């Protein structure tokens, strides 16, 4: 087996993405809002398009700001429609994200001369190519280390998420399980909700910019759901889902290298394989759950 620095970076990027997603993802699953990641990752398209039109470049900072703003708008609009219109929350999520995606598509097509944005690329990402986009390089014990931008971005997001969870652990726990109690204890469950939504929006945007949206949706939901089958303690669930996500990233990459040749194909999508690997781990946990419960 040949293993290059490239492979290490792909696995590391995938694992960082898994950790960044698993932390807010656990709370999404606990709050019955699992589809929020899917909704936000579709809904940010107009944000990307408008940011591109205004800034005139694909520099990631503007795209990031645009996407994060629209991500937050998605969360807020979902909340408003379900609150004011008394619509089921999942339905209002569906309404908001399809509308925003359509708006984004319209903007892109209208400005096709100026925008070089491919919706497919936004949705699928190209994890295999991330190590080529290098932000910094240095030599360490004679070994040339080239830090990819995606890995750096995801490391920052993962640390911020970890920090937020550490600081607000108790508040988030109470707000997730018993919003009324949290109100009674003197802090606003609503604020915790919006903090979580902001976290999900930023994480989703950062992760899919680097690795594509399908892996974001998978990493947000599947590892936490797997962990919830294995443990009933929140701290343990958080730790397990981050670990399982990282393991799935490694397994996914290995599978993407070794599996297709067995069937006579050349290669396949690494992000897709990582999503599939999270599903594989879920099935294992599910079987254990079925046998021992």
């Amino acid at each position, binding site marked *: 087996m040949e293993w290059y620095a490239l492979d290490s970076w792909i696995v590391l990027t995938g694992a960082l993405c898994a950790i960044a997603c698993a932390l807010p993802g656990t709370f999404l699953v606990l709050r019955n809002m699992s*589809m929020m990641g899917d909704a936000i990752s579709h809904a940010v398209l107009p944000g990307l398009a408008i940011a591109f039109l205004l800034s005139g470049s694909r520099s990631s900072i503007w795209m990031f700001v645009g996407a994060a703003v629209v991500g937050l708008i998605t969360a807020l609009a979902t909340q408003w429609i379900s609150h004011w219109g008394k619509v089921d929350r999942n339905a209002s999520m569906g309404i908001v994200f399809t509308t925003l*995606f359509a708006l984004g598509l319209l903007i892109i097509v209208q400005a096709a001369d100026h925008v070089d944005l491919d919706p497919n690329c936004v949705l699928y990402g190209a994890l295999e190519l991330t190590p080529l986009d290098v932000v910094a390089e240095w030599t360490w014990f004679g070994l040339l280390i080239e830090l990819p931008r995606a890995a750096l971005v995801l490391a920052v997001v993962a640390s911020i998420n970890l920090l937020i969870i550490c600081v607000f652990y108790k508040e988030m726990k109470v707000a997730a399980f018993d919003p009324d109690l949290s109100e009674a204890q003197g802090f606003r469950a609503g604020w915790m909700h919006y903090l979580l939504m902001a976290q999900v929006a930023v994480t989703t945007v950062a992760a899919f910019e680097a690795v594509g949206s399908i892996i974001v949706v998978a990493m947000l939901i599947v590892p936490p759901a797997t962990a919830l089958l294995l443990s009933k303690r929140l701290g343990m669930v958080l730790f397990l889902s981050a670990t399982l996500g990282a393991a799935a990233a490694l397994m996914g990459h290995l599978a993407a290298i070794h599996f297709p040749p067995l069937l006579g194909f050349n290669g396949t999508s690494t992000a897709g394989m990582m999503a599939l690997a999270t599903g594989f781990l879920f099935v294992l946990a599910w079987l254990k759950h079925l046998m021992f419960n």
Partner: protein
Amino acid sequence: MSVRPHRILPVISLSLLALVLLPVEVAAATAATWIDSLWRVLSLQDYNTRLVVFSTTLLGMASGWVGTFLLLRKRALMGDALSHACLPGIGIAFLIMVALGGSGKALAGLLTGASISGLLGVAAILIIRRTTTIKDDAAMGIILSVFFGLGIVILGMVQELPGASAAGLESFIYGKTASMVQQDFNLLVALSVLSGIACLLLTKEFTLLCFDEAYGRSMGWPIGKLDMLMLALVAAVTVVGLQAVGLILIIAFLIIPAAAARFWTENLVRMLLLAGGIGAISGWLGSSISALAPRLPAGAIIVLVTAFIFILSMLFGIRRGVLPRTVAALRLKRKIGRQHLLRAIYELQECTSVADGSAKFNSRITFASLCKHRHWTPKAVHRLIRKAKKEDHIENFDGIHLQLSEAGYGEASRITRNHRLWERFLIEHADIAANHVDRDADSVEHILSPDMVRELEQQLKSSATPSSPHPTGGKH
């Protein structure tokens, strides 16, 4: 062009709608020719747009019907999960067809593959939900992402397959609204007839499934099979719609028309009709508008039109719309305030008659005592009095004294009587302490119907206004 009267209304409303959507194109074309071409498209005079418009209209109608049941069953995002879960089936079907020596793009084969993997996904969601504590939404998210991941893996491998071009398989997911062919139209006709018949024949069963699954099961209905049947119908709509109009539009079509219809009615049959109608109108309008000018992707425009109808429904829908509900709440609040004012005056008059030892009559009371009686601010009392005066319930108000009118006195005694009857009922039949009963009665007395009052009279064997079971505010 001579505008006939029956054409004016739709043209006006449509051009208003289009003004919102197409600022650039509107500015470019002169209004007259623009309306002319809009009408040509809407009335299907252009031969080449007819197919697309008919197809999207039919699909909107079918998905409006099916979506209604999905929404009521709180599974609105099932279309989302299902449409993503179709991808691996498409890839596998392509592989099998290539292995058998075909081009790999026969529509029937791809549709079969998509349906099978979609149904497998749905079955997996139901099994996960039944065998674990994982909720519906998380189960949907798991299936959606893992199946889609599998699909991408398969397509990623297929794309490098020698001798077969897999290009265009992804358009199966993104749709090709503007370039639909006769085959798609035939499929959509079959689909809408099928879902129409199914919704017609199974309205009762599906209603039961939506509103009281446990009751249905206890009555011996095959709930599991009905559930699967409903989801198979959703799968049919999703798969056929997916390759015709794309993933986002079919997800939107399954959710938005039904959610918009919900604001207008509480009746399921009417909601079905409305949702079908809204879906059809959105498909018709959206594809027509997109045919008017270049660079208006039909799928996106249709979603935006549907969303526009949703926003209008959410604001103005007569049953659950935001504005009607706000107005009704304001009206009730005002009615309650008025009734409190009249009762307060009545109770004050009672106090004076008890203090004087005289018989109860419509005496003059002071403004100050009224404020003190219920701890109201003078400003609030002024506002209430102004409204009561408009209804001729209060007369002779000079800033210090006031008096009830003839009509107001009757109304006040009726309101006070309702309040006390309810209080007595609570004390005698619900075992609530006399000093707690005032507030409880307050929340119910305003909505007591005449029938209820008559029943209370019979139960309590009293027809006159009973005396209050507790002290009524300040002593004077």
